[in-house]
């Protein structure tokens, strides 16, 4: 048996892990759906920080975190439309456009964020326990005594899994990313489908950013997303383009993040820069392993990921 203090620490750690994981769970799910439609968006980091910024500023001025969260989502969504226009309508290179979006997001929030640096949010978000589920030992505390945004992320993951595999919209989405010409010939509007899911990806990237600055770290810092968008990009592969798998991946990263937070707070002798490196090191390892699995099993990767579609072009 673990001693009571150690157990408390561990539960606390995992509780924080879920919160930290939520920040990347949203964008990972969003990107899974964008990529399923054939659009790769490497601008997640940019959309996240735009969402984080708007989420923060709106909450800061209105004192309403829910409004802030919605504002963050919408800001991410709008940012994604830039990418959508470039790669879907203009048929630009997806990698280039995505990278540009990331640089744009980091730059613009740096510029307009100067006067908010070190500003703190004084809103506290109520947590509430879900009846019954929260009574489960350990699990209950970790997963079911959280705030509303965390619950929202559960719902999004499960509902989107259902959409992906059990609905017509899901078939259209998968067909568009696998074989756009076939989808088109069957009467699916390929452009509309790709716009919609790229926008959806932007909304969720914005949600992840907003959760970060409204709940997880309620203050503003330059570059506050700190590469979490890139972790999401890696997680998409780790999750093999499946929203349920994304939950595991996100919480795995959340745990590492929470752990290094905890160690730093307790003042270990390990240099903090080494500790903060852990999530990214893990990203690297996970992406190598995931890529190997994808290569071996030939599953998951939407076949026309990254390719533009045009009817009359050969």
């Amino acid at each position, binding site marked *: 048996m673990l001693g009571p203090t150690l157990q408390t620490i561990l539960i606390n750690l995992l509780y924080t892990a879920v919160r930290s994981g939520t920040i990347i769970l949203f964008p990972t799910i969003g990107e899974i759906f964008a990529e399923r439609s054939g659009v790769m968006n490497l601008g997640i980091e940019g959309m996240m920080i735009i969402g984080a910024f708007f989420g923060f500023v709106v909450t800061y001025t209105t004192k309403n975190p829910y409004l802030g969260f919605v504002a963050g989502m919408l800001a991410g969504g709008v940012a994604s439309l830039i990418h959508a226009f470039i790669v879907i309508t203009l048929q630009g290179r997806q990698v280039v456009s995505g990278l540009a979006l990331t640089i744009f997001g980091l730059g613009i929030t740096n510029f307009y964020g100067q006067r908010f640096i070190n500003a703190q949010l004084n809103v506290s978000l109520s947590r509430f326990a879900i009846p019954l589920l929260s009574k489960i030992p350990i699990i209950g505390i970790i997963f079911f005594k959280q705030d509303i945004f965390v619950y929202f992320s559960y719902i999004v993951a499960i509902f989107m899994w259902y959409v992906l595999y*059990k*609905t*017509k*919209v*899901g*078939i*259209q989405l*998968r*067909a568009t990313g*696998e*074989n756009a*010409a*076939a*989808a*088109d*010939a*069957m*009467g*699916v509007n390929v452009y509309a489908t790709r716009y919609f899911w790229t926008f959806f990806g932007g909304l969720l990237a914005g949600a992840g950013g907003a959760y970060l600055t409204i709940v997880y770290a309620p203050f503003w810092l330059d570059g506050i997303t700190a590469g979490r968008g890139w972790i999401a990009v890696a997680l998409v592969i780790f999750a093999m383009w499946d929203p349920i798998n994304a939950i595991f991946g996100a919480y795995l990263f959340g745990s590492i993040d929470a752990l290094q937070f905890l160690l730093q707070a307790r003042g270990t002798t390990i240099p903090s820069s080494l500790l903060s490196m852990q999530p990214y090191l893990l990203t690297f390892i996970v992406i190598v392993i995931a890529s190997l699995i994808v290569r*071996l*099993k*030939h599953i998951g990767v939407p*076949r026309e990921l990254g390719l533009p579609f045009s*009817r*009359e072009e050969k």
Partner: protein
Amino acid sequence: MENIVLEARNITKYFPGILANDHINFDLYSKEVHTLLGENGAGKTTLVNIFDGLYYPNEGEVYVNGKIANINSPLDAMKFGIGMIHQHFMLVDTLTVVENVVLGFQKQGFRLDNNSIVKKIQEISEQYNLKVNPYAKIWQLSVGEQQRVEIIKMLYRGANILILDEPTAVLTPQEIDSLFLIINKIKSDGKSVIFISHKLEEVLKVSDRITVLKKGKVVGTVNKEHATEKELALMMVGREVLFRFDRKPTADGKDILKIENLEGYNDRGVKRLKGVNLTVKSGEIFGIAGVAGNGQEELAESITGLRKSSKGKIFIGSCESTNLLPSRILKKGVNYIPADRIRTGLIPNLSSVDNAILRCYMRKPISNTFTVNFTKAKDYANKIITEFNIMVPRLDAPVKLLSGGNMQKLLLAREILEEPILLIAVHPTRGLDIGATELVRKKLIEARDKGAAVLLISEDLDEIIMLSDRIGVIYDGKIVGLVDSKNAQINNIGLMMGGSKNLNVQKG
């Protein structure tokens, strides 16, 4: 008198630099099979793509049931009852049959109601004898089965006008017969069919009327009763066509290529070669007949060293060459005409000169130790171009601007002028017009007459029978039968191609 269900008036369609359809008039009666016949590039696919709403014409109108029809997308086409089965199937490999059938179908709600769809699919299957497992994923199905899914898909949507673009290209003779039965059933149900092909024999078998296209123009429309193969060929090509080649009698050469129990996997990790055994002698063309996807391309790639084989042995000459580097294999006098001429065979963005010297730029006279002598290289390219009658816009234009036939002639010239000991040709005439096809075939026979061992892989059974001295039938990664082409029976080969085992086949 039957009524006209679909009519095209003065359809013109340009692509950059190409007039694909030139004032085409075409009509389709109810309960009729109307064939579009024409060489590759004649504009058949372009015309039916316009009916399907994939392309929009520059001039002209389409009428459905006497009324002008503005068809902007396949969805519109569906509303007019037009359903098209494309030459390259429009199926999503990773989805199931059911999912493919309902894809994009607007009726019914948000959720996927599997049971009712499956029931309807089964009804259609029974009515038209289109057997397929509704829960299978597309990649698990054979090409013939995939085609049935395509047909079911269109009937499910209630198509009245069915367009089949070269549906027989990927089928065995037996599968073709059963497709024709299905087409007749569809016709007798009061629907109409536009059938596309460039194979005269089958066109005469299935059509009511035949419209011949050439270079984007209608040459004429004839009733089946009044048409003969010879006459149609003349209309299609504009001149007499050689159906036979003169050739020396088969030499009794020594073994050049010997393959023993070869096994190997495709890119997706599926075992595609399951114990291939064969021998090719010098001075003979050994044809491999088979339906696409039975291991043909993996076999060619294994011999040339482009793909690792997992088991078995390959001998070229008398030395073993299993899994050697491609460069070492090519040095043994092996030359290769790959199936994918644009990406594997040539470098699309480089010029005709650069592509022509790809095999010999390391040797004199083209190279002087360090530099390439471009005057010599140009001379060499010019020689090839005249000898093989290749049309190039400019000598330094990228080869991707060449038409398919000219690309193939350039590739063939480059490989065959090396005077190979072993020549491997995969689908050497696929997609070529009759003129280029004739030249390619003639050159293959010339190489054989000069003593090369030629391994010919093709899905065109007529071509295999016409060119080969011996024929091996490949099915599911094995050579399942060996036939001497002198007494080859197309029916037997067809059965073997479809996997029938209990046949009396001579062993080679």
